[in-house]
Structures are given as structure tokens and as C-alpha cells.
């Protein structure tokens, strides 16, 4: 039985300040390493200093002699056996190489030992005293070296991803003009401000409490079920605040297993926090890629054929494709395409998704290519993109209509806000005094990923509402948007809503990645909150004592913490309805399956497995779009490009919170600036080790590197995604921005750089 009662939107869509803001600015938000657990021992991880080889021995006498040291564990320690992780999630990902199982070193920075002590200071000191002897072997540390072939054991041959449509080779022959170019993107490391950390506390032999910063509550229980045979329901993960993730907290890494093993051996809780240098080791990275294009244009400047040979690096055991060809497959109208994407093994450890995996590096190549093609066709870069725009009714890859596409409006509004019409086409033609000015633009696109989701809404005796979802707020604003949704559904003040996230005992949800959380978990919370409202309405309508008895359900509205007949005072507060039931609280639990998904997705989710509904369903191709415009200023003597202005216009579906969504978009755009000008992990070719594994040498923008940043949101709900029409905002901001900046650098200097980051050595 349902009621149709209305629930005016007061909070959804508005500029609502983060509900977790006060805790964060007071320093009261508790991140993993900050939980107080009695009798805690401190662990320091030791990482391999070779890229490939064997450990001859680990001498630990001096380390054990340090006062306060409790134990040193490594592959030399008996009884640390772990069973392999298979097919979970998308292959073993972070646990492809299990710690301490043998003396083999398969990647730089692989965890090889752990020192546990009464104090952090003692553990850190002792870790420096380990005497480690290696037998180094030949290695392939980088994508470039990986091309020489992999003469080592390979149980899982690197596969190729392929896509073909039309007849690209014939169309290339027939094209009016052809163009070839290759684009390179480097290894990058996520480097969230909060380093990975774990506190593991056993309760007996088969129950475990884990504090860890995670983008996926269900990952560690699933991995521990396979490696140690634990019941996943006996692994309690607690992670209320996550100090940034960007993808590398969405899987389980070896250090978590190390901490769990150490806590078991010692029989007491153990805390392990990675060092910043270790954040460049065994917690994933964005793989280096190369995209090599051969493109044909017809006489009118339209794309006639695209041949794309793509390469991405991957680890020594697992296979994770950095899907750099995805954007080129679908973004522009083109009937003839050949794509081959080859994965190349390296001794760089398992790679993993990093903010807009595939789309971010892929759009750098594609969108610089489009700039080059526009010039070749004698067209303005924006006019050239409009000319090759894929119509709303036909996704070039699937042939399906788009669920909702407003890219042309993004072009229009972005260009107007930026002032693009004032651009003069000739490189070097715009100046401010001596300073060279460059204006560049690019298209942004990101697929819509969704998951089945579950949530509980609770009315408490004091009238407060509690929302429970085993999901995550990694800085994305999940706490806030869920509170907004619930407050609107129930007609209560947002201050009356408490949201609980980050606990594996809460209703299960999928990982927070692929910009899926707002739409997916938001839908479940909307269902639970409206379900609660409807059940309470049914109780009131059916109770003779209620002033609502006999009223028509369709006439009800939720407001002022209760239910009322629209436009009248006839009604009652939720607490009155609750009191009548004789209960302390009233719960409504709901499960949702997104459009294009099935019961199977929900079942997988409830079993703690990955549940992801892809962007292209049977009926629609579902993508978010955007257009990014960049201004760079380049000193003509020092050739140091600085981004003075960025404008992005984004079609991301319904915007739940204009304030936090805007911040996600501007943050993503600044990540694009970082990719364009700053960010690169340097590998020493002689040792295979990382040369800049710290935040002074691994450059990310600081405040002074960033000028004006504006994000415009179109706010068209996409009802082919969900009833809420939400598509997500976390990733699209980075897509296209690096290319927009690179194109602006070309416009300022006349120098075309086809490799990120664009540092001054490449402009000389």
C-alpha cells in the first residue's frame, strides 16, 4: 500500500553546506589511524628496494634488540600462509601478490617485512636496522621497457582489447586528408592526503575488527574470507571518514593482510600506517599509456576513419586495463574505427583505477588530436568539435540513442562564460604585455555507472531520523546528499537527520568509484525514506484516533516533522504516530536496482560482491558530458605555463547539492591541470625504483598554481538512469581538462607537446 503524498524539495538541488563540516573543521572527524584501541602495538612496514628478484635473507637481530620491539615478521616467519584470491573483485587487484608467502620480489616497494613494537618510534627505528640481502634479477620497470617483451613466468597472458566497426583501412585510403600522431601519459600516484592505515583487532580466532580508510566496505571481508577462511560477516570494518581515495582505497592491499597477520601472531591489536613513500609502492597507480592514432578526414573536415593502437602498462601478475581507448570509441561521429589496446607487463606492482581511469589519459590524446585536426581542417577547435558532434539519437559505438545528451549546450554555455569568441586562431597571437596568452578547449565525457543499493531509514523516539547505508564519503559529500534526500522525503529539518556510513554492518552497498555513489545509494535512501513516510502514513490513516483517519493518501504532505493534509493544519507529528504504535523506533529498509540492472545485481551486492551496471544498456547509451576551456599564461623567457582561468560546463544529470557538486567538478578540473603541467612518477631506469616518492618531488598543484576556476552545471535529470536522474560528478571534471590546458599551451607558444606533464624542458 502506498500513498502519493507530495514532498516538496527544499534541500535537494540547493547549496547545502556539508553536514560533516563541523566535525571536520573541529578536528573531531575520526580517521582510521585515530581510533583509540586498548593495548595497541605499532607496526612499521618494510618495502623491497629492488624491482625484481629474490630475498636471500632478512637479518633481524639488531632490530629485535631495540627496546620495545615485539616481533619481526616476513616470509621467514612460519605459519603466515594465505590462500590465493581469485576473481574478487575484477580479479584479485590489490591482493594479486600476497605478502610474506615466499622470498620472491615481483615489484618495487613490495611489502617484505613488518616490525611491531610498543611505540611507533621503536618500530620505525628497528625497521631501519633490518639487514636484507637480495639476489636481484632482470626487470621491466616501465611501459617503454615492457615493450622489449616479458621473458618471465606469465600465468595470465596480457590480453588485447579490440573494437572494430565499418572499414577503417579502406576509409583511411579514401580520406581527403590523413594525420598520424602518438600521445603519451605517465605513471601517476593517487596520493590522497590521508595515507593508508589499518588497525586490526582480533576477538578470538575467527572474529576481527578492522579500521581502515576504504572506498569499499565489503572488500576486506571478501579478501579475508578467501585468504584466511574467515566468515565475511565476522569481519567488522569501520571507516566513517576517508581522507581522500581517488581509486586506491577501493581494493584491499597487502599491508592490510600484513596487519591482520601481525595482530594474530602477537595476540593484540596492531596499527600500521604507511609512510608517504610507501603510498608510491604497494597501493596501486595509474598506468602509463600511449595512444597512436591514424585518422582520416573527408573533404568537409568530418572524421572518416580512426585507427587507434593503444598500450597501457600493467603489473607483473594481475591484468588491469587502463582503458585509454574508450573515449575515442564513442565521443565523435565516425563510422569507421579499428582499436587494438595491448596491455604490457612491468615490475611496477598492480595498477588500479585512479580518478577517471581510462577517460582521463585517453581524453588527453583524443582531445589534443582533435585540436591538431581542427588546425589541419582550418577550423576553430570548437567549430570542429561541433562539426563532428555525435547526434543525440546515435552513440557511435553502440548505435543506441543517448539517455540524455546536452553537449552542444555545454559548448555554448562554456564558450560564452569563457569568452571564446574573442580568441584569435594564430598561435602566439594573444598577449598581455610580454606574457603569451593561450586559449584551448576540450570535450569531457564520462560513462554512467550505477549499482544496486540498500539503505535503512529510521524514525527515532525523539523525532530524529537516522539513515544507514554501508557506503562511503571520501570527500564527495555522501553524508550531505543522503541527509538532503531524507530530509526532503520526510519533510524534516536537515539538522534532524543523522547519516551513518562507513560500517560493514550497515546495509550493504557497492564500492564508491566510477561516480556511482550519489545516484545509486541516493536512490536506496530515497526509497527507504519515502518508504518510511508511506508506512507511517498508512499507520496514521488506519488509526481512528489520528486526525488523519479517513483522509485521502493523495492529499497528504510531509512537512514540519510530520504528515498533514495539504494546505491545512490537519495532521500529526511522526512522533505521535510512533507513540501510538507502542514502539521505540520505526525502521524502513529498502533495496534498489538501477535502470538496466537486474535482481542478480542486487544478489551479488548482498553477498558482498561487486555489482556494477554498465553505461550502455539494451536501450540507451548513458554518459555525462562537458566542455572545458582553459587560459594559460606563459612567460616568453622562462616558458613556464600557468593556468590563469578554467571554465567547465557540465551535463551531469540532476545535481543533488549545487555546492558540493561544484566543488567536485572544480577539484576534478584542477586534477586535470595537475596532469597537464605537474604530475608524473619518475622511475630510475637502472634500479627500477621510483625517484620522486615524496610530496616535494611528486608535484601536485598548490594554491598559488591555481587561478580562477568556474564550473557550470546544466542540471538536466536523466531519468533513464534512475528516478532521481543523478549521474554523478566525481570524475568528469578531470576528463578533457589536461587536453584543454595542453591545447592552450600550444596556442600560446606554437609548440605542440604530445606528452604529459608539459614541463618547461618540453617547451624549450
Amino acid at each position, binding site marked *: 500500500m502506498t500513498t502519493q503524498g507530495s514532498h516538496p524539495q527544499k534541500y535537494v538541488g540547493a547549496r547545502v*553546506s*556539508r553536514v*560533516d*563540516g*563541523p566535525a*571536520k*573543521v*573541529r*578536528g*573531531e*572527524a*575520526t*580517521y582510521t*589511524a*585515530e581510533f*583509540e584501541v586498548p593495548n595497541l602495538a*605499532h607496526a612499521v612496514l618494510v618495502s623491497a628496494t629492488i624491482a625484481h628478484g629474490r630475498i636471500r635473507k632478512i637479518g633481524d637481530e639488531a632490530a629485535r634488540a631495540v*627496546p620495545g620491539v615485539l616481533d619481526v615478521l616476513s616470509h621467514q616467519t612460519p605459519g603466515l600462509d594465505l590462500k590465493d584470491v581469485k576473481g574478487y573483485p575484477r580479479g584479485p587487484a590489490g591482493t594479486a601478490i600476497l605478502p610474506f608467502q615466499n622470498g620472491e620480489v615481483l615489484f618495487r616497494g613490495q611489502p617484505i617485512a613488518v616490525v611491531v613494537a610498543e*611505540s*611507533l*618510534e621503536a618500530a620505525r627505528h628497528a625497521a631501519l636496522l633490518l639487514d636484507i640481502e637480495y639476489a636481484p634479477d632482470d626487470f621491466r620497470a616501465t611501459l617503454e621497457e615492457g615493450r622489449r617483451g616479458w621473458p618471465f613466468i606469465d600465468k595470465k597472458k596480457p590480453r588485447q582489447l579490440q573494437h572494430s566497426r565499418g572499414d577503417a583501412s579502406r576509409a583511411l585510403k579514401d580520406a581527403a586528408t590523413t594525420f598520424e600522431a602518438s600521445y603519451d601519459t605517465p605513471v601517476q600516484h593517487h*596520493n*590522497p*592526503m*590521508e*595515507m593508508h592505515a589499518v588497525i586490526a583487532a582480533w576477538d578470538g580466532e575467527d572474529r576481527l575488527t578492522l579500521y581502515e580508510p576504504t572506498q569499499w566496505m565489503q572488500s576486506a571481508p571478501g579478501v579475508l574470507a578467501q585468504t584466511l577462511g574467515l566468515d565475511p560477516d565476522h569481519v567488522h570494518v569501520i571507516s566513517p*571518514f*576517508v*581522507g*581522500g*581515495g*581517488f581509486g586506491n582505497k577501493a581494493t584491499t592491499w597487502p599491508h592490510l593482510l600484513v596487519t591482520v597477520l601481525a595482530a594474530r601472531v602477537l595476540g593484540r591489536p596492531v596499527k600500521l*600506517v604507511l*609512510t*608517504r613513500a610507501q603510498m608510491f609502492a604497494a597501493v596501486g597507480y595509474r598506468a602509463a599509456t600511449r595512444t597512436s592514432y591514424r585518422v582520416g578526414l573527408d573533404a568537409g573536415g568530418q572524421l572518416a576513419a580512426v585507427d587507434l593502437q593503444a598500450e597501457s602498462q600493467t603489473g607483473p601478475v594481475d591484468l588491469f586495463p587502463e582503458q585509454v581507448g574508450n573515449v575515442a570509441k564513442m565521443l565523435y561521429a565516425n563510422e569507421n574505427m579499428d582499436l587494438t589496446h595491448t596491455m604490457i607487463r612491468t615490475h611496477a606492482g598492480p595498477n588500479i583505477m585512479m580518478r577517471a581511469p581510462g577517460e582521463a589519459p585517453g581524453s588527453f590524446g583524443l582531445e589534443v588530436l582533435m585540436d591538431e585536426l581542427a588546425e589541419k581542417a582550418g577550423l576553430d577547435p570548437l567549430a570542429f568539435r561541433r562539426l563532428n558532434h555525435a547526434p543525440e539519437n546515435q552513440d557511435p559505438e553502440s548505435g543506441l540513442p543517448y539517455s540524455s545528451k546536452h553537449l552542444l549546450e555545454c559548448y555554448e554555455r562554456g564558450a560564452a562564460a569563457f569568452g571564446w569568441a574573442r580568441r584569435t586562431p594564430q598561435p602566439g597571437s594573444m598577449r598581455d604585455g610580454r606574457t603569451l596568452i593561450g586559449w584551448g578547449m576540450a570535450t569531457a565525457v564520462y560513462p554512467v555507472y550505477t549499482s544496486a543499493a540498500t539503505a535503512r531509514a529510521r524514525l527515532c523516539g525523539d523525532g530524529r531520523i537516522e539513515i544507514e547505508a554501508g557506503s562511503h564519503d*571520501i*570527500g*564527495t*559529500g555522501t553524508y550531505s546528499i543522503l541527509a538532503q534526500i531524507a530530509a526532503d522525503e520526510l519533510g524534516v529539518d536537515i539538522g534532524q537527520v543523522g547519516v551513518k556510513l562507513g560500517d560493514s554492518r550497515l546495509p550493504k552497498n557497492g564500492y564508491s568509484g566510477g561516480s556511482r555513489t550519489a545516484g545509486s545509494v541516493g536512490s536506496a535512501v530515497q526509497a527507504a525514506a519515502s518508504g518510511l513516510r508511506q508506512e507511517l502514513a498508512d499507520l496514521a490513516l488506519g488509526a481512528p484516533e489520528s486526525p488523519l483517519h479517513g483522509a485521502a493518501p493523495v492529499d497528504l504532505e510531509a512537512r514540519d516533522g510530520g504528515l498533514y493534509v495539504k494546505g491545512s493544519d490537519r495532521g500529526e507529528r511522526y512522533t505521535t504516530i510512533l507513540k501510538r504504535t507502542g514502539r521505540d523506533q520505526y525502521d524502513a529498509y529498502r533495496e534498489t536496482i538501477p535502470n538496466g540492472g537486474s535482481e542478480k545485481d542486487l544478489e551479488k551486492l548482498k553477498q558482498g560482491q561487486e555489482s556494477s551496471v554498465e553505461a550502455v544498456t539494451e536501450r540507451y547509451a548513458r554518459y555525462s558530458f562537458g566542455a572545458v576551456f582553459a587560459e594559460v599564461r606563459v612567460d616568453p623567457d622562462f616558458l613556464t605555463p600557468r593556468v590563469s582561468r578554467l571554465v567547465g560546463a557540465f551535463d551531469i544529470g540532476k545535481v543533488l547539492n549545487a*555546492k*558540493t557538486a*561544484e*566543488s*567536485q567538478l*572544480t*577539484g*576534478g578540473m*584542477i586534477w586535470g591541470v*595537475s596532469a597537464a603541467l605537474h604530475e608524473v612518477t619518475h622511475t630510475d631506469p637502472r634500479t627500477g625504483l621510483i625517484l620522486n616518492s*615524496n*610530496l*616535494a618531488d611528486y608535484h*601536485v*598543484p*598548490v*594554491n*598559488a*598554481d*591555481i587561478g580562477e*576556476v568556474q564550473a557550470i552545471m546544466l542540471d538536466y535529470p536523466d531519468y533513464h538512469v534512475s528516478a532521481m536522474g543523478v549521474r554523478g560528478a566525481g570524475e568528469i571534471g578531470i576528463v578533457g581538462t589536461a587536453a584543454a590546458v595542453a591545447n592552450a599551451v600550444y596556442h600560446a607558444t606554437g609548440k605542440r607537446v604530445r606528452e604529459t606533464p608539459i614541463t618547461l624542458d618540453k617547451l624549450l
Partner: protein
Amino acid sequence: MTHSVWEAPETGELPLSLTVNGVQRHLTLPVQASLLDTLRERLHLTGTKKGCDHGQCGACTVLVDGQTHLSCLTLALSCEGREVRTVESLAGEGGALHPMQAAFIEHDAFQCGYCTPGQLMSAVACVETGHAGSEGEIREFMSGNLCRCAAYPQIVAAVRSVAGGQGEQP
């Protein structure tokens, strides 16, 4: 300087007295303990964050005798007799938010929140030391504090609103 430092290896620990957020503390610490680890691991004042432990990110910024310090690069024992202030001391009587804390919320000057305590300590110093005269000056002063979520434009807006409002609530 006494000779006790050189006698330390016997136990590796020395006594320390300092004031933290107005409270007198007496501790016995390993000689190498940083102020950051002392705050977080021994005094359970976890508002101050560890982002790099190398003085490169600014997340651990605190005030020592009124000056901003990177607590990860500060030996705790060097703070004998000094007064340390952390983010936990920013809020006023009855827990009322400091204007800078309120401005950070209003302008959405953080996402994950992990760099925020350090940003706030620097932001307060930016205004109090008269370095918030223009957006450019604020950006320069605040550039010792990394924010990987990249809330930089919002941080500048928050600092400006406090500087412009003479410390009033934005």
C-alpha cells in the same frame, strides 16, 4: 642545554613539560619523538594530521608560541616550556566555531577534510599576520598546505571572507 641528552641512550627517553591548548602536560618521551606523533599517539589530540611526515604537505601545521610550525619536523623535546595550539583550540567558549572554521564550511573549502586542520591553522595565521590583502597574497601564503581534493579556490574564498569581514562570521 643540559647534558641529559647525551645520557639518554640508557633508556632513550626524556621528560618534557609543555602547554597544549592551555593545558600543562608532563610527559616522558623517546628522544626522537616528533611533536606530531606526540600529539596524535600520546596525547590523543588527533585533529592535527600526518600527511607526509616530511614537512612537505602542511597537514600537521600547529602554532608554537603563536608561530606556525610543521609539527612533523618539530622534535617534541624542543618544545620544553612552550605553548602549543592545535585545531582543537580554535573553537571558542561553548564550542562556538572560530570565524575561519565557519567560513571553511560556508565556502566548502574542503572535501575529504584531512588537510583541513592544517589549512585552518595557516589560514588563521594568514589573516592574523596581515597576509590576506589580496587573492594573490592569500594563494601565496596558503601554498604550504597541499589539498589533494583541490579545494584551493574555495579556501581562498573562505580566507578572503574572514579577512574582509574583520573576523566577523561570513
